[in-house]
């Protein structure tokens, strides 16, 4: 099942990348990043089946980082919304000068 799992994982990752590049809603872009992390987790679990369970430990760490990222990222989105009344990434161009 390794090849099939890697196939599903590759497709999910590509969908996540396409989502990040084509959507403007900051929250949906953020969820696409979560989808990419999930795709990588599937690769880790698939390889852990034949290379030892240490791969599953890495899935654990990835999930922790994802949780921390969600907390901080959503706080940033809320702060941005308070400031600009929008989450559309096209209107958030403070660094453009």
């Amino acid at each position, binding site marked *: *099942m390794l090849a099939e799992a890697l196939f599903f994982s590759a497709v999910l990752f590509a969908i996540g990348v396409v989502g990040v590049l084509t959507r*403007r809603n900051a929250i949906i872009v953020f969820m696409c990043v979560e989808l990419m992390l999930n795709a990588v987790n599937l690769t880790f679990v698939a390889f*852990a089946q034949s290379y030892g369970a240490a791969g599953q430990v890495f899935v*654990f760490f990835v*999930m922790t*980082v994802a949780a*921390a990222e969600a*907390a*901080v990222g959503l706080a940033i989105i809320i702060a941005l919304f308070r400031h600009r009344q929008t989450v559309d990434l096209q209107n958030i161009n403070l660094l453009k000068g």
Partner: protein
Amino acid sequence: MVVQDMPHGTLPLLYTFHFYLFGIIAIVSALLFVTRKSPVAAALWLVNTMFSLAALYVMLDAQFIGVIQVLVYAGAIMVVFLFVIMLLNLGQGVVGDARGLGWKLIAGAVGVALLAQIFALTRSRTPVNLTLPAGYTAQQVERTGAITPIAGPLFNEYLLAFEVTSVLLLAAIVGAVVLGKQRGEGDAG
């Protein structure tokens, strides 16, 4: 799963069928997720993807990770996302937020290139002395339970990483509180 009395490499048809079923559900849900206009619908399709991924984890001998996937990803992280959507009132007055044609072409090209790269990688062979005997993880789970194969490395080889993770979580909590705080009186920043 442990394959008994079977020649190496063959799996029961039911197992294969369910593996493909959940994989296809995950991909279709992910496609629906990136194409929905409403953030709430998108979030719920992503929850669906995560549930199917949990099923795939269980079928790949990672039962504990499957449970954690449902609890932490589908249960906690996605609820936080839905909560923020509700807090910012983004569910109503849905307008399309897709970028223009140029961005879509770029995204399509990047997606195809990524897929091609990953397929090229799956064709390469890994050294035989790295691989464990077939069904090793399944037998380990059978012998010691689903948690011991993860707990062993986590608290031995990766103990330092585990401790650093706790610092990371603390930093994330402090960061979220600082960012979420209302700028008010008596606030120098």
